[in-house]
């Protein structure tokens, strides 16, 4: 496999330490190379985006980072620690949390319980503790419940606390997934199309939420989105994939004006400014 590294080096000018370093990551499905030697470094406490046309390999890229797919080649390091070969739960324990493109909440649990599961990995109590109801058990339970309360508050879903998760409106389910992921106290959170199914107004709220995740919780955010308004205003750095290959990366305005990106992804008129809004409505 030829490694085509487009823009190596630190991502955002000025920031030096990367929390996630992905190098030459490749995934082949039979004859199809879904992700092709992608290199990407995510600076600590940044908000970065991965964009690209449908089927470009973005979700697959996330799936490899979180251990759901084993990469064909390449390495993934979180804070210097190699992640390739770890199971998904180990990756989570190492500090990466994620949401899914198709929402995957635990359908028989309430919102609160969903988040408590997210907290599981961080709890100290064991099987024996649970049976004997030791102090450690009670502390753990308290911690989990507390985490759920805080996270529900954080994403603004407190009123849904005891509702079955899958009964929530779509947009709220997305937020709940984020809360659940945050409950694992990650260093890095991967969001796969968090704004899908949200109207522009809700997307605005989401944008604020993502900023707070970084600012208040100090969690690095990496997201996949097709909503360019969100991507361009939120991300500090953008990587663009097409047919599995990185075709561009850089600051939002750089990427937006990159002809390769326009050609492959944004389409006509995209460079003009904010995408999709006025041009049509005002027509």
């Amino acid at each position: 496999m030829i490694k085509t590294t487009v823009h190596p080096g630190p991502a955002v000018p000025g920031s030096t330490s990367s929390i996630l370093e992905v190098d030459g990551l490749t995934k082949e499905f039979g004859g199809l190379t879904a992700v092709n030697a992608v290199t990407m470094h995510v600076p600590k406490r940044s908000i970065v985006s991965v964009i690209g046309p449908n089927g470009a390999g973005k979700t697959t890229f996330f799936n490899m980072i979180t251990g759901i797919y084993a990469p064909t080649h390449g390495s993934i390091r979180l804070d210097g620690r190699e992640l390739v070969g770890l199971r998904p739960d180990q990756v989570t324990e190492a500090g990466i949390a994620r949401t899914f493109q198709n929402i995957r909440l635990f359908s028989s649990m309430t919102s609160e319980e969903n988040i408590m599961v997210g907290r599981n990995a961080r709890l100290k109590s064991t099987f024996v503790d649970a049976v004997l109801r030791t102090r450690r058990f009670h502390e753990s339970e308290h911690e989990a419940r507390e985490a759920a309360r805080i996270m529900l508050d954080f994403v603004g879903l407190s009123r849904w606390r005891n509702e079955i998760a899958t009964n929530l409106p779509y947009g709220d389910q997305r937020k709940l997934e984020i809360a659940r992921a945050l409950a694992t106290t990650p260093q890095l959170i991967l969001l796969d199309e968090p704004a899908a199914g949200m109207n522009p107004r809700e997307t605005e709220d989401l944008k604020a939420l993502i900023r707070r995740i970084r600012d208040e919780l100090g969690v690095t955010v990496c997201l996949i989105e097709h909503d360019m308004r969100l991507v361009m205003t939120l991300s500090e750095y953008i990587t663009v994939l097409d047919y599995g290959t990185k075709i561009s990366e850089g600051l939002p305005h750089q990427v937006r004006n990159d002809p390769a990106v326009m050609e492959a992804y944004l389409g006509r008129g995209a460079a003009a400014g904010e995408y999709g809004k006025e041009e049509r409505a005002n027509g």
Partner: protein
Amino acid sequence: MELSVLLPFIVNVIVGGLILGFVYAIIALGYTMVYGVLQLINFAHSEVFITGAVVGFEVFRILQDSTMNGYLKLLIALIAAMLVSGLLNVLIERLAYRPLRGSPRLVPLITAIGVSLILQDTLRFLEGLQGRFDLTYTLPAGFGDKFCSTNSTCAPVGDFLRTIGVDVQLKDVILVVVSLVSLAVLNYVVNRTRLGKAIRAVSQDRVTAGLMGIDSNLMISATFLIGGALGGVSGVLFGLKFGTVNAYSGFDPGIIAFTAAVLGGIGSIPGAVLGGLLLGVIQNLIGVMNIFGNLLGFANLSTIDASYSKIGPFIVLVLILIFKPTGLLGKSNVEKV
């Protein structure tokens, strides 16, 4: 031991296993069809196919004294068994499974077990009324004969088989032919026809199939009809091959056949056939393991006798599934994460 004795022995064991395998395969298809569309292990299928065997028995008994051609009798038996088993299967689905659409899947599983128990006692009762319990097939003359052993006008194939000492009987040939024909027909229906595609769509997502204009209840009924009819065929073949059935004799082969379906990959028609054949052969090979143990001088192998042949399939299944978690020819569920 000389090769001239050993070779036919091995060949016979394998051929016997293959024939057994065809029986399993065609039973397995009944499970696979229903499993495919409802994700339900239809425990009642073993009784559905035994019902077919019972119908076949009755047809042969009624036609015992008629001078009708033996093949015609067989055809009548097959058709009658297909009809009865097929309709029985549809009826079971209507009464016992359909009201439970949407329940957790274990719920219809338990009803399936319940239906299976009901049918066992019912069959036994019905036959018991006539003073019968074990039903012994009396086949049309010539059916059970050795492959052209008495007749001087032997087909060359028969001669050949005889010289190498293979015990194939006419009914075995019939069994294989009928199985192959049913398999081919089924494969065509499921993969090539509009009906087949609709059934597959229903099996994957009933609601969305509805959005395509497909009546999912109708398709499920059709599936049960086809599965039951296959059960009927397998029942008659089972009776033909082994001679005797009773109300309870479906259970064991039913389990093995379902294992075959799983081994081949649930939902896959060629998989079920492959699984059935494989298990038939393996069962027979394990059954003769002690002979090889004796010949080769492995004491440990010699203790593996016929009583292990029952669990052979499961051990093979474990070994294979460890390496191919979705069976030999099973398609993995490709859920996009």
